[in-house]
């Protein structure tokens, strides 16, 4: 095997469109001719649904629980255009330890040398949330993913989650951990949304890789159990995802971000909220 495997982790707050974005990136990369595996690291286990016609696949951890041991090939399922789909799985809400679940599932795959054997070009880890504990940091540690992208809207809670992720990346950066490729700005339809994300990227010394607008096409395709790339290949939205995938494929060098500390983040958010308020009030008075 001579080609270099590119390992990418995509993080973001729950519900922000992380799995949608990830699946569309996987689908676009695969249509570009790359061999791709998407590894869902979310106990909800629905990362790869739109690559599999809306169906859930047996997870690594459920299989481990049932059988006591797992052969990696038993939990890899082929999806759209030959994409390898894996779901780590995890406990039901409110019980157990989802972070440990990610550690267990990722270690199991690494031990069995699956990535090498499948001769992959890309592995994309789709990871839930705010890096709340050591387990969720697993994919950004040494030797696993090399590049991290975060999906964020201009919503402050989503930006907070991204900032937390940057703290995690910064922590592991001097011990060989993954570095930050940039922000994938999602649901960007207002001008000020773009400005917020741009400003956050600048303050934290990173870049915005792509602006993805909110689109009803995405929802329509998802309702059919498909990615936009599969369900509406000629749409504007599909072009944006393809463009994003091309940038990710070409992306070589990531950097250590400079996360804001708690006070800075609060002040930054407060400054923006005042501006938004002014914009909105102007709209209201203009409309009256």
């Amino acid at each position, binding site marked *: 095997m001579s080609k270099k495997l590119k390992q990418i982790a995509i993080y973001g707050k729950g519900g922000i469109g992380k799995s949608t974005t990830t699946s569309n990136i996987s689908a676009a990369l695969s249509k570009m001719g790359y061999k791709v595996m998407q590894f869902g690291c979310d106990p909800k286990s629905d990362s790869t649904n739109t690559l599999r016609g809306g169906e859930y696949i047996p997870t690594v951890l459920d299989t481990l629980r*049932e*059988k*006591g*041991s*797992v*052969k990696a090939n038993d939990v890899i399922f082929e999806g759209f255009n030959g994409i390898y789909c894996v779901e780590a799985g995890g406990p039901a809400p409110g019980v157990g*330890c989802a*972070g*440990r679940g990610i*550690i267990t599932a990722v*270690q*199991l795959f*690494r*031990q*069995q*040398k699956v990535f090498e054997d499948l001769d992959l070009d890309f592995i994309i880890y789709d990871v839930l949330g705010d890096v709340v*504990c*050591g*387990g*969720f*940091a*697993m994919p950004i*540690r*040494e*030797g696993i993913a090399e590049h991290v992208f975060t999906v964020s809207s201009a919503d402050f809670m989503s930006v907070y989650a991204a900032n937390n992720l940057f703290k995690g990346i910064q922590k*592991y950066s*001097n*011990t*060989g*951990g993954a570095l930050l490729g940039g922000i994938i700005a999602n649901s960007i339809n207002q001008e000020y949304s773009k400005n917020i994300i741009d400003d956050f990227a600048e303050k934290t010394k990173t870049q915005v890789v792509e602006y993805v607008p909110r689109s009803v096409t995405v929802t329509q395709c998802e309702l059919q159990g498909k990615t936009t790339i599969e369900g509406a290949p000629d749409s504007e939205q599909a072009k944006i995802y393809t463009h994003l995938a091309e940038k990710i494929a070409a992306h070589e060098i990531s950097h250590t971000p400079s996360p804001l500390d708690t006070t800075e983040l609060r002040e930054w958010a407060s400054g923006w909220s005042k501006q938004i308020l002014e914009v909105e009030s102007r709209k209201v008075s203009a409309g009256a």
Partner: protein
Amino acid sequence: MVINLGTPVVESREQRLGTVIAWDGSASRLVKESCYSENGTACCGCRLCERENRGPFTQGASCSEMMVECQAGHVRDAVLIQHSPIGCGASQVTYNSKFRNALKMRGLPVKNMRVVSTNLDENDMVFGGIDKLENTIVETWERYQPKAIFIGTSCSTGIIGDDVDSVSEEYSQKLGIPVIPLHCEGFKSKHWSTGFDATQHGILRQIVRHGHEKQEDLVNVINLWGSDVFRPMLAELGLRVNYVVDLATVSDLAQMSEAAATVGFCNTLSSYLATALEQEFGVPQVKAPQPYGFAGTDAWLRELGRVTHRETKVETYIEKEHRRVKPLVEELRARLSGVKGYVATGSAYSHGLIAVLRELGIRVDGSLVFHHDPVYDSGDPKQDSLAYLVENYGDVAHFSVSNRQQYQFYGLLKRVNPDFILIRHNGLAPLAARMGIPAAPLGDEHLAVGYQGMVNLGESIRDILAHKKFHRDLAEHVTLPYKKSWLESDPYSLSIQTSAAGEA
């Protein structure tokens, strides 16, 4: 099967080898169900490992971390850090006594083992224990200046996801010595023998050196703390012994890659290290029956002779030893013939001990092993020690797998009513004693190895049989802590595997 040294975490035994910890039936059936020779690869998905998908009822058990303590903690010029709450250090007492005894037995300066705990508390569980680990590494370095630092993880650090690997890497560079993470969280494997593999995995990744010249007369002997029986034996063949992992120095461990061969006294202990040394460093593993009884020792020596090109010396030695030992064994046979023995030890070790008992004319109708590996890492049928036992020394009617469970032991012994038991893990011996059965605690696990081993073991058994009257008296005056209904039950009736195990 291929061992993967590319990741810091060892693959568990059940994942690699399909290890089971509850099974009941004859040895010949276990051989059949293990499908060793048919598959030749580990964890074959055979009936055996598929069936035992949940652990049986367990009163208490050992932990992988303890095996790290008694291996990494016994490297003479290294220090083991237990990255754990202090409770994980409870077994330091036991392993320190074993370490001191072993040093004495080998004629080395007696000293305490060096183990340091990070003593994690509630705050560390919430905020992460990495800072404490770093402080401990620095303190350990300043205090002891060891040649290597091992870091044993624990359940708690595994759950919170402390990044021990990155810290180890950082301090390996800062201190210029190997700082080696050993992932031995107790919850990760149903059997503690994964802890052997975790230690060996770390040593293979970070201590064993690459690219040095071979030492054609050096043999790695994978051992624990037993008396020095291998050095004189191998000296007769013109070979030097490199005892690993226990009681070795870091430099002994580093030179493992230069040896002409690797041998062990028990496949359970040596499977991972010996196989990986062959795979990664080209050091041949002696794939032969274990060195017990005439047949096993002959075959083991011949394979060692073949691998190290000492065939003639081996034949001379075999002939000499047969001549010397056969009359002694004959004499012991005359005295021990018809006596009934029972073996309760680690898995592959029991295969060897039963062979020795049968060489001595002792009847063995039952044995308890603490786990069973359907295959070993090499996947080579020549190492199928259970099949070798059955083929060469006959079947064992009641060959039970149970992870040292007290509650089952009474019923197991009652099935065969032995005159004595052989045991290495003393937790079960008092129960046997209270049933009137004397136990030979094999504190020296090399006692039964090789030709002289048959004589040694025979004499030990004669000694313990002399205690029979004492044990009978004891049995008459003690009561067991179990209800009559339980004592009359099948010992596997609480095990989920009972129905399957009962199949023909």
